Structures are given as C-alpha cells and as structure tokens.
C-alpha cells in the first residue's frame, strides 16, 4: 500500500511540467533598429526564453489592456531606451512608447508577487541619467548600439538562466535569423520585420536554430 502511494506521488523533488518563461521585449520599432531587434530575439531565445512584444497585440480599443496582460504574463522584461532622438518624419517627435511601457511594467511588477525582474538597456552610458532621472540608482546595461553589445548585456542580465550560450553561439543564431529574414519577409509580403506574423516566424526559426547550435 505505501509503495503504491509512493508511485502515485512520484519522486519528491522531481520537476513538474515546467513552462518556459517569457521575456517582454520593449524596443523601438524602426528600420534603424532592425539589427538590434534581431540581436535581442537571438539572445533571448539562445538563453532559453520566449520573447514577447507589443507587436503581437492588435490595434483596437482595448490595446492598453492587452499590453498590460502581456506584460503581466511575462516573468522578466527588457526595456531598450536607446532611441531618444526626434523622429525624422514631420512632425518631429520623440517616441514615448518605451518609457510608458517601462512605467507600466514597474507598476505591474510591484503589484504582483516577487520573483519578477525588469532591466533597462541603453546605447550610451550616463545618457539615461538625463533622459529618465527617476531611474538613478538603478543599474542600466549599456550595449553601445552593437549586436555583440546586446549579446553581452543579455548574458549579464540573465546570469541565472539554465542555458548559458557564448556570444559566438548567439552570433551563430543571429546569422541564421539574418539569412532567414529575406524569405520570411517575402512570404509574409512585408518589407519590415516589425509586425506580428514576421516576429512570430522569426522567433520559431531562432528557437530551432538555438536548439541545434546550443543544445538543450
């Protein structure tokens, strides 16, 4: 009888059916950021996470609610505040979406249970002290606007991830993604990767490449 019970309960300490964790990716959606967008996808997937972005949320009246739900469902979030310049197209305006979503994330994570984490990335050191001084005292990760820099900061941020790929392995995943971008855009009839179908396809492709190149 006790033996049967032991079999039913399973071995203590054994893992249950663990769900992979998601990372909310808050980045600017413009053509100049395309390389870093692919770099972030490659890095997050190489580290064993699933990237989520507001690209997935359709434009509707309840968009803000859906964005909140999306952020709430992600355990971690990455915010790139490097695009602080004015837009080229008239009227010239800065993008407020990223700081807004960062504020939303901080509020949501404060309200929810512990164990959630958010990180801020920037291209230039000390600039955020001027652009968003409320973050003084918070560690900001500087990637220098380079692909390798993004890989480096992602490795630093997710130091506790189970999968520990090297920068070279992340670069190999990025390379596969870069080669696959042309046919993916062609198949979707798009000229930019900043839309939901292309983003999803790129994530699945990068994930398979990471499985092959880095291993589980």
């Amino acid at each position, binding site marked *: 009888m006790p033996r049967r019970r032991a079999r039913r*309960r*399973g071995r*203590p*300490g*054994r*893992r*249950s059916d*663990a*769900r*992979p*964790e*998601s990372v909310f990716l808050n980045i600017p959606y413009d053509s100049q950021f395309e390389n870093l967008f692919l770099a972030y996808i490659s890095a997050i*997937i190489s*580290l*064993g*996470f*699933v990237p*989520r972005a507001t690209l*997935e949320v359709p434009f509707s009246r309840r968009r803000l609610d859906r964005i909140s739900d999306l952020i709430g469902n992600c*355990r*971690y979030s990455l915010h790139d505040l490097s695009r602080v310049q004015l837009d080229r197209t008239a009227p010239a305006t800065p993008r407020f979406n990223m700081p807004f979503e960062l504020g939303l994330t901080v509020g949501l994570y404060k309200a*929810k*249970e*512990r*164990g*959630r*984490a958010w990180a801020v990335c920037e291209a230039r050191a000390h600039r955020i002290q001027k652009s968003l001084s409320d973050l003084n005292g918070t560690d900001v990760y500087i990637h220098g606007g380079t692909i390798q820099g993004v890989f480096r900061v992602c490795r630093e*941020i*997710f*130091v*506790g*991830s*189970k*999968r520990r790929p090297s920068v070279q392995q992340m670069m190999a995943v990025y*390379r*596969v993604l870069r*080669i*696959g971008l*042309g*046919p993916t*855009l*062609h*198949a979707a009839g798009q000229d930019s990767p900043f839309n939901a179908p292309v983003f*999803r*396809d790129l*994530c*699945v*492709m990068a*994930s*398979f*490449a990471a*499985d*092959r190149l880095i291993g*589980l």
Partner: protein
Amino acid sequence: MSIVSINPRRNGDNGFRDGEIRRKRSDTLVGTLRREFGEKFANGFRGDTKLATVLRETDSQSLSDYLRHPRVPGRPATARDTARVLGVSDARAERLINTVKREMKLDDRQRDGGTVYQQADTGAFVTKKMSGSTHAKTKSTKARTTRSKKRR
C-alpha cells in the same frame, strides 16, 4: 524585502540583517515557501521539493541569492514551446523548422567556400559552389607551371 539565508555561516552575520531576517532550514518545502513568496516561487518545481534541492539545481548559494537573481529552474524553451506560446500552428512551425534546416545547410556550404545568391522571384537562397575537383586541378596546374618555370 526580508532576506532569508539557509547557511548563516556563509553570510558571516548569522543570517540576520536589520532584525527582520528569518532563517529557513534547507529541508523547508517549496509549498511552504510559496505561501510567503508567491505562487511563482521556484516555478517548475513541485511543492514537495526541498529548498536544498532547488538551490542545488539552480546553482544558488543561498535563498537570498536565489531571490536576487532571476533564475529559471525549468527547461529552456524549444522551438515547439516557442510556437505554442506565440500561437503559431504546428503545420506552420514545421514549415519554419524545415526552412531553418535548409538555411543551416546552406550556411555550412557557404562556410566551405560556396557563394550564396538570393533568387529574385522567390526570395529563396541558392548556393553556387566550385566543385572540389576543379579547384584541385587549378591548383595543380599552377604548381606545375611554377615548377616548369623554375627548370627553365
């Protein structure tokens, strides 16, 4: 946030800081800790797992170390997981995986000395590679010419 340590000697301060830290035994169950730290604490571990097991499997020094750094005890996401989370259908995921398999083969061939071209009509990538035998012949001809020149 209260900092909890299971190994007070490692901290050197008996595991107590600011008078609010409580020590946790290494055989405390995850289920018990979830009542204090929320349902997502040690996500991926069963409730009857001991704290020591969680710390060992996540390479954490102590509970405070575990809480400070985002650690993922579960397995890394596979391509199927990613497709499921993002709502990509199985058929679509299969097609994408096959595309990547082809691309990775092409990438390998390119590294071996081939050249990759993108077709204008389909957008697909095609590799053109000089065959090994031709390359060898060229090399040997060049070598022979050099030798004959030397003889002269």
